[in-house]
Structure formats: structure tokens, C-alpha cells
């Protein structure tokens, strides 16, 4: 079996070029999906029988919360690949993830609060999901802080990779403990859209949003990844050809 293709796949110039080709596809597809989802979510979907038009915050809250959690998963997996198999590209991906993840964690908190005010009558309730999301934000901030603490890129990569993996193992434990804590203290939990069957005209915009946000993240990640590759491969000769 010829493994040349595999090594080419992992080589920085190849990834740099592929990322450049893929970015516009992801970006345009994401834009299209998000616009269609916006129209169908804000105009076509019927108001909720309990929450009226207020439930439409779901269409930005749920995708942001999804991105916040998913990006941490991508970051930790990439960091593990970088640490265990010594693939530099893994570290580059992990480094590109953290900032975007932290941004969307904040967005999910803000939109959750704005949803909470009309539903709970207050901006903040120690709801298990909001609380777990808040802790996730601190995990991101710790990761970014640790990276910023090192001058040497290679050490920053590996130290932050260990932290990302430790955090990743801890996230289910944190989520479980927060759920457990909440079930004892009996706070209201309106934000669960745990209705047996969401009608299709409410569900479809949500699914489109989730897919659109995911593709958007892929596009942003690829642009950031290209920047990271250029920073890391500064002395490589292929950069001359690429920048011509």
C-alpha cells in the first residue's frame, strides 16, 4: 500500500492550499443556509403555543451553544492528535479553535439570558445548562491564558494540549455534577425544548441553523488555520511560491 497520499495530506503546504480552496465553499453554503433559516425561522415558523414569538431566540441560542461545546471537542481532539502523534497540524488546529469557541460561549450565555428574562422573569437563573456553559467559558479562558503565558510556541502548544485534554475529560463530570446540584436545588428549567414532537416547520429552521453555523465555523477555522500554518512554517521554502 502506498502511503504517500497520507503524508501529503498532513504536509503544511498541501493543507494550506486545500484550506484555501475549501473556505469559499463552506462560507457561501453557510451564508445561504443561515439566510434561508433566518427567513423560515422568523417569518414562516408559527409562534409557539406557550412562548409566543419569544421562542424564536432558540434559532440563535441553540446553534451558539452547540458551537461552543462542539468547538471544545474539536480543539481537544486536535490537541490530542498533536500531543500523542506529534502532528504539528493538530496543534495548529487547536490553537485556531479556542478564540472562536470562547466567542460563541459568550453568545450562548447572552442569548440565554435574553431568553431567560421573558421566560423566567429574570436575566439569570442558575439553570444547569447556563451554569455548565459559564464553566465552559472559564475553561476556554484558562486555555487562552495558558497559551498566552508561554513565549515559545512549541511549549505553549503542548502545555495547552494537556490542559485541553484534562478539560475534555472533566466536561462530562462537570455537566453531571451541575445537573445533580440543580436537581437538588429545584430551579425552574424552561429552556428545555423537550416537547415530544416539535412540528416540522419549527424544527427545520433549527436544523438549517445548526448546519449553517457548523459550516461557518469550518470556514473560519480554515482561515485561522492558514494563518497559523504561515506563522509556524515561517522559514519553509514553499511559502515563497504560495505568496507569489
Amino acid at each position, binding site marked *: 500500500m502506498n502511503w504517500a497520499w497520507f503524508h501529503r495530506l498532513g504536509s503544511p503546504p498541501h493543507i494550506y492550499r486545500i484550506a484555501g480552496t475549501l473556505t469559499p465553499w463552506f462560507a457561501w453554503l453557510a451564508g445561504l443556509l443561515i439566510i434561508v433559516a433566518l427567513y423560515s425561522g422568523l417569518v414562516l415558523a408559527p409562534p409557539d403555543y406557550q412562548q409566543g414569538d419569544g421562542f424564536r431566540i432558540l434559532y440563535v441560542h441553540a446553534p451558539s451553544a452547540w458551537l461552543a461545546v462542539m468547538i471544545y471537542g474539536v480543539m481537544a481532539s486536535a490537541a490530542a492528535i498533536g500531543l500523542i502523534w506529534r502532528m504539528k497540524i493538530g496543534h495548529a488546529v487547536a490553537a485556531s479553535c479556542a478564540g472562536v469557541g470562547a466567542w460563541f460561549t459568550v453568545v450562548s450565555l447572552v442569548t440565554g439570558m435574553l431568553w431567560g428574562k421573558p421566560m423566567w422573569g429574570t436575566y439569570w437563573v442558575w439553570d444547569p445548562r447556563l451554569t455548565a456553559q459559564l464553566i465552559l467559558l*472559564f475553561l476556554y479562558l484558562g486555555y487562552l491564558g495558558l497559551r498566552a503565558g508561554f513565549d515559545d510556541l512549541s*511549549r505553549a502548544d503542548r*502545555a495547552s494540549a*494537556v490542559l485541553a485534554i*484534562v478539560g475534555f475529560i*472533566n466536561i462530562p463530570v462537570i455537566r453531571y455534577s451541575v445537573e445533580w446540584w440543580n436537581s437538588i436545588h429545584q430551579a425552574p428549567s424552561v429552556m428545555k425544548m423537550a416537547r415530544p414532537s416539535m412540528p416540522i416547520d419549527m424544527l427545520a429552521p433549527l436544523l438549517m441553523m445548526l448546519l449553517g453555523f457548523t459550516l461557518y465555523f469550518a470556514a473560519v477555522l480554515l482561515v485561522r488555520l492558514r494563518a497559523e500554518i504561515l506563522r509556524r512554517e515561517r522559514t519553509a521554502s514553499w511559502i515563497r511560491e504560495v505568496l507569489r
Partner: protein
Amino acid sequence: MSAQRTSTMTAVWLVLQRDLRLATRRPAQLIQPLAFFAVVTLLFPLGYTPELSKLRAVAPGVLWVGALLASMLALESLFREDAGDGTLEQFVVSGQPLVALMGAKTAAHWLLTGLPLTLMAPVLAIALGVSVAAMPGILLSLAIGTVSLSLLGAVGAGLTLGVRRGGVLLALLTLPLAVPVLIFGAKATELAIAGESLTGPLYLLGALAVLGVTLAPIAAAAAVRIGLE
């Protein structure tokens, strides 16, 4: 190189002994976290209310947050001096598994901070209006919980080894990871104060400690290797 290889068990025992002996030579480092724990706890009656019935209601949270911050305070010195004088490098090249030596250092840290903090908690609990009947539960939950705190702290201290002035960063890294310990520990203490059975949260605290004992030394060893370069 000596002809006879030291067994890992002996090495672990020697590292533990060394850390304990070093600590007795510098009692100030032992006492400071305890004094910090006491000051933080005793600020609450002054800042909140001297009414014992109200203090009793917040006692679990106050005790656990105080213990958490106090054990955090002692973490910075866990590896810093040993990194400065080359001891950690000797650990790495000694041929002994670094994971085991990290376990020994963490155990020493628990004996020097976690255990004293646990033993001091009942005194502070009395000042918060907790009855003597709750003391066994408080002692037990803190004894188990501080094991996890020492283990998490060792990972954090290892990671910030290569960072200049990493004290605040160390707290920022470690505190979010300590949330489950805080939740289960405070709940166990609350149940102890209410005079109810606290086996549920105690089992969960024990599970966290077991998870920590198996995984944290590996992460700490990896972190120290990176930090020493």
C-alpha cells in the same frame, strides 16, 4: 550510577519523606494556608451577619470555598523550588517513572495542606454555628475532597511551571475543574449539618478522587516534562 537500581516503591517513599522533611524545616509555609483559611472564613460573620442560624445555612459553601482557595494558595510552591534547584530535572533523568514521583509529590502536598485544612475545618465550623454532631461528616468529606483538589492542583502547577508569575493563571486553570468537588463536597457538608445521611455525595467524592488518582499524575508528569524544557 549506582550498581543497584532503586526500586520505584523506595523512590516514591524517599520523595515523600524528603518533601515532608523539607516542610518541617520551613513551618511558615505550612501555617500560611491554614491562617488564610481561618481569615477567609472568619470574614463572613463580619461581612454578612453574626447570627449563628444564618451563618449555619451558608457554612458548607464558606468552608468549601475557603478550603479550595487555601489549597490553591499552597500550590505555587509545589514544583517551583524543585524546578529552580534542578530537583525536577533529576527526577526526569533518574530512570524512575515520573508518574510515580508526581504521585508522591502530590501525596506530600495533601499531607501538608489538605489534611491540616481538613483538621482545622471543625474549629471554623463551630465559629459558623455548626453543631458538634456534624463534625465527623465534615471531616470525612473534606478529607476525601482535598485529595482531588491536590491532584487537580498538581496538574495546574505543572502546566504553569514554564509561565512567569503564573499564580493567578494557576487559579484560573484549576478552579473551574474543581467545580464537581465543590458541588459534591458542599452538599455532603450540608447534609452532615442537617443530620442526614451523606453517603450519596461521599460516594461521588470518592469516585472523583479515584478518577483523579488514576489520571492526574499522568497529566502532571506530562505537564512537568513540558514545563522543564
